[in-house]
């Protein structure tokens, strides 16, 4: 599977310079997005970040104030929803309560001129695909939330759209069903090979299913790429904090390189020390190593290492969640795996905190808009 739509001649969906304002607030600002055919793409962000507005513009339910939207090369910017080769799975499912399941699934086929018998045949095929064979004669109200969602999925997929839009489709499901639905959705997407544009605020969902994801904030894309790249090397502080937990420490940069406020040197693999003020370093809590100060390795304190005091410990069984305070007052979180090998730390202990230079990242000052191209090369490093 291609990871960048730019590799292929024609993107399944392409948004260029799309903006949408609601009275005085900007919902989406100058957004560029290309989805490759057959790609599972997740738009991830907090509520109000513009992800749903973006999806609704692709579906035709909102019109952009500026910019173009193309589907498989065809400009659909101003086409109404019923003339777009796009289908949507709504958050509330929006099944037709007056129709039975079979007629719900066949609705789109019937509207595009398929005969009743043929529509029924194909609808049954897709009900099979989502594991609801034999439910055709029931009414939507007779189905559970999870089943209704499968119907909504079948109703959209049966039309073979150029792209399937999913608007937080798991929002109303409980955690257990959600987990199994994620696996199932990924399987279905592989089977039908349709491009999925999946909007969610749940990072686990996005990371586990998406081929690529974009993190949105305040109407802009903060970072975009494969999940592991965005997680391991987030482009912005917002992305780092939104996608999982992240320790962000201030940096002082001078001619000799980057330092933490206590003077310890900081090195990041493949990256030159940043010049200028306001840069920070990000380290994921699970990437930190703790060692009681007394038995620190005889080698002098190398780069990417500092001391901190344990202030809080929560034992979670598989791991221990340790909160530490650095001498300059930053709060740091570390997840320590309980392998049984390490000596447990206690509250008040002074520990040496270290991390590998491949597992930390510089974060630019302020808010920086970063596209896919810029960061792709760094991810390879």
């Amino acid at each position, binding site marked *: 599977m291609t990871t960048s739509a730019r590799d292929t001649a024609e993107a399944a969906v392409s948004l260029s310079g799309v903006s949408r304002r609601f009275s005085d607030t900007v919902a989406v600002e100058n957004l560029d997005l290309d989805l490759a055919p057959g790609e599972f793409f997740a738009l991830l962000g907090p509520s109000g970040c513009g992800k749903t507005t973006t999806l609704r513009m692709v*579906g*035709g*339910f909102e019109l952009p104030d500026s910019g173009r939207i193309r589907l498989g090369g065809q400009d659909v910017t101003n086409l*109404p*929803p*019923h*003339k777009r080769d*796009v*289908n*949507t799975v*709504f958050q*509330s499912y*929006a*099944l*037709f*309560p*007056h129709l039975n399941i079979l007629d719900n699934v066949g*609705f*789109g086929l019937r*509207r*595009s001129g398929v005969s009743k018998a043929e529509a029924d045949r194909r609808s049954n095929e897709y009900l099979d695909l989502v594991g609801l064979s034999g439910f055709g004669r029931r*009414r939507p109200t007779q189905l559970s939330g999870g089943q209704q969602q499968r119907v909504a999925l079948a*109703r*959209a997929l049966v*039309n073979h759209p150029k792209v399937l839009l999913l608007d937080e489709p798991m929002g109303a499901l409980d955690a257990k069903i959600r987990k199994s639905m994620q696996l199932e959705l990924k399987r279905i997407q592989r089977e039908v090979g349709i491009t999925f544009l999946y909007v969610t605020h749940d990072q686990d969902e996005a990371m586990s299913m998406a081929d690529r994801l974009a993190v949105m904030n305040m109407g802009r894309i903060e970072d975009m790429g494969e999940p592991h790249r965005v997680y391991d090397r987030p482009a912005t502080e917002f992305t780092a904090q939104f996608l999982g937990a992240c320790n962000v420490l201030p940096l002082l940069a001078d001619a000799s390189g980057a330092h933490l406020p206590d003077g310890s040197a900081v090195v990041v693999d493949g990256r030159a020390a940043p010049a200028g003020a306001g840069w920070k370093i990000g380290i994921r809590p699970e990437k930190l190593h703790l060692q009681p100060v007394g038995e620190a390795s005889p080698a002098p304190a190398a780069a990417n290492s500092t001391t901190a005091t344990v202030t809080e410990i929560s034992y979670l069984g598989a791991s221990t969640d340790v909160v530490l305070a650095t001498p300059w007052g930053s709060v740091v979180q570390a997840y320590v795996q309980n392998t049984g090998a390490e000596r447990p730390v206690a509250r008040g202990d002074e520990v040496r905190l270290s991390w590998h230079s491949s597992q930390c990242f510089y974060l630019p000052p302020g808010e920086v808009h970063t596209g896919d191209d810029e960061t792709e090369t760094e991810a390879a490093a």
Partner: protein
Amino acid sequence: MRLRRWRRMSVPYALALLGSAWMIVLFLIPLISQLSVSLMTGDPEQGYNLTWNFGIYAELFGPGAAVPYALFLGRALLFGGAATLITILVGYPVAYFLAFRVPRRWKTPLLSLVVMSLLVSFIIRTYMWGFILGGHGPILTWLRALHLAGPDFHILDTAGAVIGGLAYNSFPYMVLPIYAVLERIDPRTFEAAADLYASPRVGFFRTTLPLSRAGIFSGILLVFIDSVGDPVNSQLLGGKTTYMIGQAIQDSYLIQQQYNVASALSAVLMLALGVILFAYARFFGTENIEDLV
């Protein structure tokens, strides 16, 4: 403990008892007494006695009837049906507009406006229409002044005036139930229809209309029953050619004091309405009884 449980379990029955008593005292007893009065014979001076006179029904509605009650009934059903149709055609767009197109803060004032007409006495409202549409009323005066109407042209005393009056008076009873049903529809349903290639027109006939069927059904019940039995509009806006069954019931009861005739007419009206509405409910295809409520 046991007493408490008994009490709790008896509450629904106690509540049902109240409702049942209400139905028996205010519906069942009057219904039975009405039916029995229709089988009495006598006259206002001597009083009436129950003689099981089933013949009265044939007498009133048979081919040789002295007064054409069958015609009055047929006319009432026709006028009532026409008025119901008008309220649907006019009321549905109003309800649709209120439910989907009006900004939220304007909904309550506009709905109040629909209901407001009910605050004025029904008789006064109808009288006012009689004045407005009458020979010396503003409309005809203007039409004559503009030479759009001849000196003999009149609006009152016509079927149109009566049907218009019926439709006007029942209008809120059609708008409100349709509005209530439309308002409950998830707007995403319409987006889903558009998403699945339904143009706005197709989307309306495939989703909005079927989903508002229950509201239309309630509206038809309220408007049709009310209009067919109405004695006031035909009396105030109509004339000899628009005489309806409701008027006949009222006149035979209050003026001729033929209680048996009034009761028999009313029983036939009730039967006719019952049969029509039952047939309509079956014909309208209600697989689910819940669709109606």
